[in-house]
């Protein structure tokens, strides 16, 4: 009779999920599946609503990365109405995005990922938790809280709301930045950049080296990658073109609005959540661990793999060191954590660049929009992957059709493969313990679903 190990809930991932590991008669892993609740009905809900209202509504889709939805929706609205926001508006959007992402990446590394590494993957959960971090590194924990709070305060003070933002809209943003406000922010960003650089050094020296065995064995799969790059191949979180890379490192670039030519959506009867796959590869879709087809990943490691370079100097130096050690593309799943910290450095550096740009205080921050029939695809790199908002409007600017692909969904197939790989690697003859099951969870947390 089949035996099923259920891991439920998955602690410390942002969103709830459960894992079912199916054992055969010999107690070995026959299959393993990750079940994630999907967000259903939003596309239908959008129909009939003014496109300019969408950026305020979509923030409620995800409480963890509302700024990504806010900006992707604004960009879709820009495209629907055929407008380009003024340069200062785009810089302000980017600045808010970078501030939000710095706070998010600090949260992820120190509070979600670090307990596994700092306390140890085999430690009992009673100590392998967020409070364990206080005991292990109290000064760092205090600093993280201080800086996360600082990013939220800066956003709230300037943009009005940190949690349910209303700042951005089709055509631009709601207010310009005064020189006084710029000076105020300028006084804080260096602290954020310095701590970002400290964090990656800390991780490289004290965290990752101790767990190279785990990095080389947990969740390892070889699939493709998706991410956004500029025309010269630099990683960009706000704008650019999409790059879809095969497992061997070859790739295609395409504009956001062509995504349907490259990406398809597969459905499995056991999951509400769809499985995006690389339709353009022509191999179909398969979750066969030994011979997967059409599967690509999104999020940090994916972006680090698809880009030719980072957009800022310190982050570029970190990327070169990373590639020297792990190559391109790097397939080891737990390297998502390392890649996240390289991205943290770029976000912090870009944040400093933006605040130091005198053009950011230009009072012209909105391009007038006129409702019209059109289609607009807005895409940003959300912390958890490539986020696509695709709207169609009628002549009154009301939404007639909407399609959203959120970052986590891109990784649905890959997460299932990683869970199965880890379970098969570690569970033999029906023997497992809490440490093994936590390592299965670690293979999911890397993706930060």
């Amino acid at each position: 009779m089949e035996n099923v190990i259920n891991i439920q809930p998955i602690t410390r991932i942002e969103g709830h999920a459960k894992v079912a590991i199916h054992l055969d008669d010999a107690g070995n892993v026959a299959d393993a599946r990750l079940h994630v609740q999907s967000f259903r009905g939003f596309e239908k809900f959008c129909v009939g609503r003014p496109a300019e209202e969408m950026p305020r509504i979509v923030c409620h889709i995800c409480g963890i990365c509302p700024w990504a939805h806010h900006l992707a929706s604004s960009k879709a609205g820009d495209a629907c109405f055929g407008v380009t926001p003024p340069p200062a508006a785009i810089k302000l959007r980017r600045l808010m995005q970078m501030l939000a992402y710095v706070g998010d990446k600090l949260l992820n590394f120190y509070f979600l990922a670090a307990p596994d590494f700092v306390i140890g993957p085999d430690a009992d959960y009673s100590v392998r938790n967020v409070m364990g971090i206080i005991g292990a590194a109290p000064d760092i924990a205090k600093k993280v809280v201080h800086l996360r709070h600082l990013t939220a305060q800066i956003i709230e003070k300037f943009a009005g709301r940190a949690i349910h933002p209303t700042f951005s809209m089709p055509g631009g943003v709601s207010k310009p930045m005064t020189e006084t406000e710029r000076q105020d922010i300028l006084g804080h960003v260096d602290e954020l950049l310095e701590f970002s650089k400290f964090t990656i050094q800390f991780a490289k020296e004290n965290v990752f080296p101790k767990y190279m065995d785990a990095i080389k064995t947990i969740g390892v799969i070889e699939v493709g990658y998706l991410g956004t790059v500029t025309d010269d191949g630099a990683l960009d979180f706000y704008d650019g073109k999409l790059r879809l890379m095969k497992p061997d490192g070859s790739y295609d670039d395409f504009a956001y609005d062509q995504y349907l030519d490259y990406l398809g959506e597969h459905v499995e009867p056991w999951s509400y959540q769809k499985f995006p796959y690389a339709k353009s590869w022509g191999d179909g879709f398969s979750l066969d661990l030994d011979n997967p087809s059409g599967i690509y990943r999104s999020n940090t490691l994916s972006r680090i793999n698809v880009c030719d370079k980072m957009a800022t100097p310190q982050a570029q130096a970190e990327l070169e060191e990373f590639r020297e050690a792990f190559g391109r593309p790097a397939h080891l799943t737990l390297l998502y954590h390392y890649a996240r910290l390289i991205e943290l450095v770029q976000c912090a550096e870009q944040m400093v660049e933006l605040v130091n740009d005198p053009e950011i205080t230009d009072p012209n921050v909105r391009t007038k929009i006129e409702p019209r029939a059109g289609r607009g695809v807005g895409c940003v790199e959300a912390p958890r992957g490539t986020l696509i908002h695709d709207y169609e409007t009628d002549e009154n600017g009301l939404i007639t059709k909407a399609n959203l692909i959120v970052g986590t969904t891109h990784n649905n197939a890959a997460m299932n493969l990683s869970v199965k790989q880890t379970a098969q690697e570690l569970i033999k003859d029906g023997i497992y313990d809490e440490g093994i099951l936590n390592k299965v969870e670690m293979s999911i947390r890397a993706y930060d679903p």
Partner: protein
Amino acid sequence: MIKDLFEKPVLVLGCGNILFGDDGFGPAVINHLKENYSLPDSVLAMDLGTSIRDILFDLALSEKKPQKIIIVDAVDYPNRNPGEVFEITVEGIPKKKTSDFSLHQFPTVNILQELRDHTGIVVKIIVAQTNEIPDSVQPGLSKIMEEAIVVACEQILSLIKANDTM
């Protein structure tokens, strides 16, 4: 306001997704509290929507902590009547709130337990029994949940005044 998060002794945090029917009860209670009551200066009432989890992480690790956190949410319990407002303990959070409701983003039991057990913060949870939470996006509370808002506000005011310990 975020700036007051670590300054106020008492936090009242509404959580839930306003896009999913009765799941928006917590945010609705916060709005009603702020619009219809004069809260003491020591109290910060915030609609955190689905963002409550990372706020709790910060509270768990912050040097400056509130004395009391009152969480307001919606639940689907057996043997409760729709619109019924009651207090639950951390242990009383239904299992499916911790695993199946990914949209809800209710703060994980883990974090709440860590807050209660390791920080000395008094954690209170006020909930209302939902009439219906739709499977897909459908904003707006049911009538019976709208009527429960005032009841929840009164209970929250009592909890704010109470000189309680863990």
